[in-house]
């Protein structure tokens, strides 16, 4: 059994890196796009079969537990659908000459490197390895963000790179501090970095060191999560990179960073004397939420708009996990999954829309329901879903977060509601402009590839009405784990 | 007392009000003329007017719709039904349970509603002036009236006029501040509702000051007759109302099998009350000038305030 598991893990991290190598060598756009999809599909299948096999004890490097399996499946799934979207997207980019075949080859290779980095970060049982993997994923996305080589793209990539590097450094310092805290108990060397041992022994660690470490980790990984005021790289990176990458950034990379934060939060809660990380997360979450909600109003670029919405939702999620308790944690997890699915599907439709209109300017996009009904209503359902309206899944998570918070912390719940409402106001304002009114600009029919969009939206819709019992049990165990 | 008699008395009441109404108008006019040192028309003049109008052809504006022709009868009917439900000389009439005081007020509201519509039907500027001002005055007067009704109902424990009057006629109602306020308020409301000075002038034909008359400007012949008759009925209704509430003495109680003599006395007393009311009205109208139309809301507003105050004071006196 263990062999199977190891094999699956090997597939999950091996397939991406191998295909990254292949893609770097393979010429020909058609083949590499297909190979990219295939690699993602294989990874996804491996991830799904993780669900079916029994889980063996964790090894020194890799670990599959209830928490990360959620992330892995989500990660590989969105990675896969984004790859299918990417095929249709890049096809168009190649046709209009925004990307050359050489850059595309690089793009596909980097896509797999990024998948590798993220998968590795998720399955690693070693906090050092996790750090390395998160950084790898970050650096690969930096390269993708700058791939258009326009002035703005380079600037965005540069900003991302510099801020990311500082984040990297802070996270590393935090990791070193955790090691230092663990070392007297677990002994020197590898052992003091293995997650599972850390967690079991956490109570005997020095709480002061853990506190200090958490500050650095929260800031370091929080930069990647995009929490305000560490968010600055995020809108630019989303807006200037290729849209599939925006989808992956919002849908996946933020989650991976969040996963790291959650891991260390668990460590903190496992130590009785350490600072409760909850309030810190709650404050940062609320700050991000309200800040991003206000920033939504003055946007002129559609991708930047949704990038800020990602910050907003990361705020909500971090808030939920910060509040803790079975309901809020459950809601936080659900919210995270829903956000990944919805936001990537929004970026799928935004990508097509921007290609049709030849612009990402909000003012250039009007009357979509009239000129492109499917895309228009697809975008509308995406925006409704992201604004937390039923019958989509995010409504359930917001329902749980708000109702469970209000009884415990009325003021916080009111602030949360304020943030959500502010964001709703901005999103709806823009949405009405996008999909209603007389259509302007290019009216040619779209050659969009709708499958990933509708796949995501139907999952989200289903989750809003019916959650499979198994998934609920599974989420509940994770929620209990998170404390 | 059998059902026949009950129906008979009710019928008598209906006939009485419609028969006496023009006379009341006549009395008012006569007294006013005399007060201004004029001879005045003979007392039967309103009856003659009505009959002459009835016999004349109707000259209908070309644009008038069916509504315009139906309204006079509707208004008359609504006012008549309302007047028939007021205990004029006897309480507990057969059909008095049909509608209580609130419904009577609302019936008058219906009449006004249709009349205002008729004023707009032909599409003239004067009709519009009349209707809009009438509705403005009414929207002040009606809540005042309703508050008066509240005061009464809270004192008497019933909105049923018969019950209330019986209660008020009984000895255990002393002088009440609230009742006084209600009286003043009711008088103001009555003046406003009947288009009397100082709110409106029933005899004016100066266009810009008209309210009620502007509304019915396009009416002629039998239609006008019905409308004149209904205004007379309405005046009678209000004076009877004031009479039966504030001077309820002498009213026969048909529930208590009043004797024939009691009825006769009651009818006589009622006629006296009416004449007194008419004379007082005439004196009041002669001694006061008409207001500008936009002063009217303040005037009617006084009624509203007094009625409200009356209601509130009622609670104070009850909790004492």
């Amino acid at each position, binding site marked *: 059994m263990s062999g199977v598991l190891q094999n699956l893990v090997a597939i999950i991290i091996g397939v991406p890196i191998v295909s990254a190598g292949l893609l770097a060598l393979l010429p020909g756009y058609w083949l590499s796009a297909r190979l990219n999809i295939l690699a993602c599909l294989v990874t996804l299948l491996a991830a799904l079969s993780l669900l079916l096999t029994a889980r063996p004890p964790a090894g020194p490097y890799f670990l599959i537990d209830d928490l990360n399996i959620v992330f892995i499946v989500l990660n590989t799934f969105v990675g896969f659908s984004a790859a299918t979207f990417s095929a249709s997207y890049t096809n168009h980019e190649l046709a209009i000459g925004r990307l050359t075949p050489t850059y595309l080859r690089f793009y596909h290779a980097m896509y797999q490197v990024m998948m590798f980095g993220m998968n590795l970060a998720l399955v690693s049982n070693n906090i050092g390895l996790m750090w390395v993997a998160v950084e790898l994923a970050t650096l690969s996305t930096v390269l993708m963000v700058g791939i258009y080589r326009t002035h*703005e793209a380079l600037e965005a990539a540069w900003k991302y790179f510099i801020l990311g590097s500082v984040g990297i*450094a802070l996270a590393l310092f935090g990791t070193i501090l955790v090691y*230092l805290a663990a070392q007297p108990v677990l002994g020197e060397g590898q052992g003091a970095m293995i997650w599972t041992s850390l967690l079991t022994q956490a109570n005997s660690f020095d709480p002061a060191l853990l506190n200090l470490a958490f500050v650095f980790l929260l800031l370091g990984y929080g930069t990647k999560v995009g929490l305000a005021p560490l968010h600055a790289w995020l809108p630019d990176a989303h807006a200037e990179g290729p849209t599939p990458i925006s989808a992956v950034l919002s849908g996946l990379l933020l989650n991976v960073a969040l996963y790291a934060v959650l891991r260390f939060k668990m460590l903190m809660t496992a130590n009785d004397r350490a600072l409760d990380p909850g309030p810190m997360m709650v404050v940062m979450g609320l700050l991000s939420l309200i800040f991003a909600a206000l920033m939504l109003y003055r946007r*002129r670029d559609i991708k930047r708009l949704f990038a800020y919405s990602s910050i907003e939702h990361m705020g909500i999620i971090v808030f939920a996990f910060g509040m803790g308790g079975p309901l809020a944690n459950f809601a936080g997890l659900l919210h995270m999954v829903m956000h990944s699915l919805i936001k990537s599907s929004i970026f799928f439709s935004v990508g097509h829309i921007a290609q049709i209109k030849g612009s990402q300017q909000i003012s250039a996009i009007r009357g979509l329901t009239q000129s492109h009904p499917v895309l228009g209503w697809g975008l509308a359902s995406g925006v409704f879903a992201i604004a937390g309206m039923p019958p989509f899944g995010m409504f359930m998570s917001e329902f749980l977060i708000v109702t469970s918070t209000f009884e415990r912390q009325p003021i916080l719940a009111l602030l949360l509601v304020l943030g959500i409402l502010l964001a709703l106001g901005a999103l709806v304002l823009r949405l009405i402009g996008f999909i209603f009114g007389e259509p302007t600009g290019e009216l040619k029919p779209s050659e969009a590839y709708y499958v990933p969009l509708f796949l995501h939206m139907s999952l989200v819709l289903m989750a809003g009405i019916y959650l499979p019992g198994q998934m609920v049990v599974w989420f509940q165990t994770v929620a209990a784990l998170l404390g | 007392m059998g059902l026949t008699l009950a129906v008979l008395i009710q019928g008598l009441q209906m006939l009485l009000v419609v028969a006496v109404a023009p006379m009341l108008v006549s009395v008012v006019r006569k007294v006013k003329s005399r007060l201004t040192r004029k001879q005045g028309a003979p007392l039967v003049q309103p009856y003659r007017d009505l009959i002459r109008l009835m016999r004349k052809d109707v000259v209908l504006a070309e644009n008038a719709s069916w509504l315009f022709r139906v309204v006079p009868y509707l208004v008359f009917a609504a006012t008549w039904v309302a007047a028939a439900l007021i205990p004029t000389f006897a309480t507990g009439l057969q059909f008095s349970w049909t509608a209580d005081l609130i419904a009577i007020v609302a019936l008058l509201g219906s009449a006004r509603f249709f009349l205002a519509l008729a004023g707009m039907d032909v599409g003239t500027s004067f009709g519009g002036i009349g209707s809009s001002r009438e509705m403005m005055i009414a929207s002040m007067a009606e809540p005042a009236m309703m508050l008066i009704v509240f005061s009464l109902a809270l004192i008497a424990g019933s909105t049923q006029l018969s019950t209330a009057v019986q209660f008020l006629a009984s000895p255990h109602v002393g002088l009440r501040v609230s009742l006084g306020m209600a009286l003043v308020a009711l008088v103001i409301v009555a003046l406003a509702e009947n288009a009397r000075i100082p709110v409106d002038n029933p005899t004016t034909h100066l266009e810009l000051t008209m309210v009620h008359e502007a509304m019915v400007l396009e009416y002629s012949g039998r239609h006008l007759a019905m409308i004149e008759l209904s205004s007379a009925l309405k005046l009678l209704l209000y004076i009877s109302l004031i009479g039966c509430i504030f001077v309820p003495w002498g009213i026969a109680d048909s529930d208590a099998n009043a004797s024939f003599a009691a009825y006769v006395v009651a009818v006589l007393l009622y006629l006296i009350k009416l004449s007194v009311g008419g004379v007082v009205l005439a004196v009041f109208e002669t001694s006061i000038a008409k207001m500008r139309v936009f002063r009217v809301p303040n005037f009617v507003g006084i009624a509203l305030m007094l009625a409200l105050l009356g209601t509130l004071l009622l609670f104070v006196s009850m909790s004492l």
Partner: protein
Amino acid sequence: MGTLAFDIAHLLAGGLLLVSFMMIYQDRMFALLHVFAFHAVVLSLSVAWQAYNQGAPHLYVTAAIALVFKAAIIPIALRRIVKQLGVHREVETVVGVGVTMLAGIGLSALSIVLMLRVTAHADAFAREDLAFALSVVLLGLLMMVTRRNAVSQVVGFMSLENGLILAAAGAKGMPLVVEISVAFSVLIAFIVIGVFLFRIRERFDSVDVTAIDDYREVHR
């Protein structure tokens, strides 16, 4: 571990902090690069001493990387960039050097107080080391935010990273230190290449500020 070993480690770590202060103090570009090279040398000595004390031979690799890469290659490369791109030879500061120094002292105090809170579970050796490392990290960040020139910001980042290496080396038996130092070297190489490629003369964001500002207002 004897007191001598401790004293030497203490001395070297303290030296690193002192050199950090010297970097903050410098307002000439070339002098800054020289001091940075010295910073790297001190780091390399410190790491080597740790390697010797902990008996961890792989740390010597880290020390060597620090010595070769940071004390030699990077300063030389930056020097060439400064010359080739015609960067100002003076360091533009946001606030005065005096204020920055005061802030730096405050930061050091903060990190030492924080580290002293750490109970005796961690041995004194690591504790001292860590206090200095944290100071160096914070000073590096301080330098990044108070200097306007791209080159001096890169230098700030590198000194920050030196602090990290110091901390990692000081953490007894910490695995992956070499890998991390290699990774960081690559990162820094990227940054330096980026500065060079994008012709960032003055600031990180001076790719072409005026043109971008117009664009920003209209389009985002």
